[in-house]
């Protein structure tokens, strides 16, 4: 695991990991989004043979990150699970039991369709709409924020942001990224079984591309 990169917002220490998450030091929170767990299972159940290894390794990566940062809480900014129940969720539950002491807060995303009983049993706190914590807000889709919500700096997911990098001689590459705007951060999709939405950079934005296990500030 390569070293995280520090990015400060409002004097808070945000450690960006090339493993597609942020460790928020002051709140001892691991922030991540769009894990889409059990997506492979959903495909496989329908007869589409996606290798399950993607899911297994996504989950393993999260376990390693928790072991590394030892957060008190995990904030998932939506789309923790991909769809309705399937057996792959049992693997998640097994892991959840081993880490009971870590609090998980899920800001519900459009893919989070499981019954509330399920989340309860899995010891996951589900927040509808916007979660506010200290000076930060968390919302799955930033498009849902209206002016009156007075969010301050907010974290969101949903888009699976990516950057396209061009060089001389028409070279062209695409990477997942952390996208920081003036008052918000869009998190990369945690799952490796997810596509990219190429972002238009602005003057005020800072982008960290994730390439080959490294973060590259653009």
């Amino acid at each position, binding site marked *: 695991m390569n070293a995280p990169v520090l990015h400060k917002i409002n004097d808070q220490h945000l450690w960006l990991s090339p493993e597609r998450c942020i460790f928020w030091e002051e709140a001892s929170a691991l922030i991540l989004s769009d894990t889409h767990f059990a*997506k492979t*299972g*959903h*495909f*496989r*159940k*329908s*007869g*589409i*043979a*996606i*290798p*399950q*290894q*993607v899911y*297994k*390794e996504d989950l393993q990566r999260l376990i390693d990150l928790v072991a590394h940062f030892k957060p008190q809480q995990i904030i998932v900014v939506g789309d923790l699970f*991909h*769809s309705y129940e*399937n*057996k*792959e969720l*049992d*693997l998640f539950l097994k892991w959840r039991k081993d880490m009971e002491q870590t609090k998980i807060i899920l800001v519900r995303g459009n*893919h989070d369709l499981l019954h509330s009983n399920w989340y309860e049993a899995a010891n996951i706190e589900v927040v509808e709409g916007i979660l506010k914590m200290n000076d930060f807000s968390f919302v799955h889709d930033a498009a849902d924020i209206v002016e009156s919500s007075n969010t301050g700096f907010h974290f969101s997911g949903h888009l699976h942001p990516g*950057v*396209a*990098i*061009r*060089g*001389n*001689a*028409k*070279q*062209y*590459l695409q990477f997942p990224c952390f996208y920081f705007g003036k008052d918000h951060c869009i998190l990369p999709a945690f799952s*490796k*079984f*997810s*596509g990219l939405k*190429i*972002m*238009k*950079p602005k*003057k005020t*934005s800072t*982008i960290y*591309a994730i*390439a*080959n296990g*490294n973060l*590259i500030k*653009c």
Partner: protein
Amino acid sequence: MIPSSSIGNRVINNWLSQKEFHPFDFQQETWKSIEAGKSGLVNAPTGCGKTYAVFLGAIIQFINAHPTDYHQLKNNGLQLLWITPLRALAKDIGRAMEEAIDSIGLPWKVAIRNGDTSTSERAKQKKNMPEVLIITPESLHLLLTQKNYPALFESLQMMVVDEWHELLGSKRGVQTELAISRIIHCNQELKQNGHQIQPTQILLWGISATIGNLVEAKEVLLSPIKQEGVIIKAIIDKPIEVHTIIPSEMEKYPWAGHLGIKLAHTLIPIIEKSKTTLIFINTRGMSETWYQTLLTVAPELAGAIALHHGSIEQHLRLWVEEALHTEKLKAVVCTASLDLGVDFRPVDTVIQVGSPKGVARFLQRAGRSGHRPGEISKIYFLPTHSLELVEAAALKEAINLDAIESKEPMILCFDVLLQYLCTLAIGEGFNEQTIFNEIKQTNCFADLQETEWREILLHLTEGGNALQQYDEYKKVEVEEGIYKIKNKQMAMRHRMHIGTIVSDAMLKVKFMSGGFIGVIEEWFISRLEPGDVFTLAGRNVELVMIKDIEVLVRKSTAKKSIVPSWMGGRMSLTANLGHILRQTFSKALSPEAGIELNSLKSLFELQADLSHIPTANELLIEQIEAKDGFHLLVYPFEGRQVHEAMSAILAYRIGKIIPISFSISMNDYGFELLSDQAIPVDDSNIEQLFSTENLLADIQKSINSTEMAKRKFRDIAVIGGLIFQGMPGEKKKAKHLQSSASLLFKVFEEYDPNNILLRQAYNEVMVHQMDEVRLRQALQRISQSKIILTYPTKLTPLSFPIIVDGLNRNNLSSEQLEDRIKKMQQQHYSLVRQLIFITNECSCIT
């Protein structure tokens, strides 16, 4: 030719002479072979009775089998299965057959089955099979999903594959091979089980236009019946006139570019003096532009010309076809969409705009005019840039030499096999040993290994390797040795996806007031804003909004509009034409130069002055330093496809000398490596760089194979059932099952690199994209050629089109990714400026 004296033959010959028809020798010969119980291949051009050659043979056979009561026998069950790749042809063939049957006095029925056949008609066919069924390969596979399908073929006497040259070399051809193997064998099984109706084996006939490998074509077709078979050629001389349109002001004619639009006015007199003209344009986007331009140049043609391409709504296309038949149109601007299909009698002239890329295609298009025996086919070639004039000269030469290309059959298409096995699993289910033995007899899967077969079955039943305890993979289940799909929804979904023609993600374009006008690619429309005006089906329309999967537009009077481009595969110059093209270049500035080359005199002089004109036994390499970097240009004249592979290998080999990144561009004449640093190629290493040594290993290591495999994987994933496109009405439900082919490719690459479909993608790259055989031959040729290295101070006429045509850029780098990004960063003030939303590919031209 003396006709055979069988009763069937007498009946047919009497009938023909009543109608004052005289059978051609090849028809008589075909009937004789059929009577003798032989299978084979008929080679004949369109419009000279090839349908009758085989079809009447089937009738003769029937009459001979029932000499006394043939005109009374009704409901005989399926006798003749007529497989055609073209839906549009089915109706006309069916009509011709019905007429013949009626007037001969057979109580046979003819029916058509394809995507357009209604459910009630299908039900009727199921209850009572017609004697003749005209069907597409896709619909034939659909038949195999029916319960008790073997009974349908119990009485079958003959199977015919029409336009076999069209199917051969494509996955539809593989589909056809598989269906044939199943029908032949299930028919035999029925007979072995005591249901024996007649002892004869089903006859198998193919009909093909001339291709370079007719014998192989026959062998592939007849492979499942293990018979030698016969080839019957129609010797019918058909004169072709080829005219090249030479621009009057050669100097002003563009070196590069795509359109040749400047010459549009020269087409008007040709259109005027002809009855009906087909104008073939290579891409859909360009055909839109040409249509508009012709109307601007000759407004009086309004209403008398039309546009026809694959992305125009079907009813509009049908209208154009109908109008062609009834001589209502003076000219139609079209793409490959009118390459095949019914012949339009009034067409007496064809214009080919831009290179047809191959001899066969050029001849086929020429043959769309004056197609009846005795008439002359007339084709005009309009070059779209200067160098295409050389191609015009080469084409003329190729026609003289009769250098028609071969169609290479595809082998080991696992995607098609997976789809086929699911098809069988829906219908009767299948026994693995039976089917394995059966497909081993097809040409496509003759070399299928037992281990590969196991993997295929494992893919279907287990979905590859899985975490047992946490998996619910479900598709094909095995019960008492029979592989079946039991889930109804899965079966229905599979039925919707049978086929091997994969189209890009298309959105339907519809007027606000109603009425579809065509389809457009998602990536194109996503770059437009509401209010933008684009051209489709010859009309300027304004984008209003995108709703679900429809693009809503309204009519626009705007003068300016964007012409969409549809990705589609670009055709590559064939080996035959490339070979002749090299020889043609040798003649430049020589007394042998014909009219085309002479008109390019000034351009050749400039090329000779700045660099060199390569002769047939030379390889020219130019190195040019310009503002945008260091260009290395190589001109093998082997066609885009071979250049793609060759450039990747060259880039890889140079990359072993020093860390360097390239962007690569190519056309049919040559390729370009562009770098931001000097490219270390000189006399000392040039031979090594083009050697055939370690070729295979070097191909595999060049990054491009990954990029190319990714592109191949899209079709494979759709055909093999990994990408679920959703069906009408089920769109919403299927949302969680959407993923892009490139994402799937990435996932498989990383987590299941040994996956059989992924391997197929790489294989296809080697065989088709890289065309390893042809690449090796090309490199061998180069090793015997003289290499000429020049350092022009300016862009040369040969280099210009390649450099301009940068759309097909590929990247290859031997630098570390991080170094590469850092370097790209230093090249600009800040990377932010390079994080460009992809806009520039939204150009107007494909």
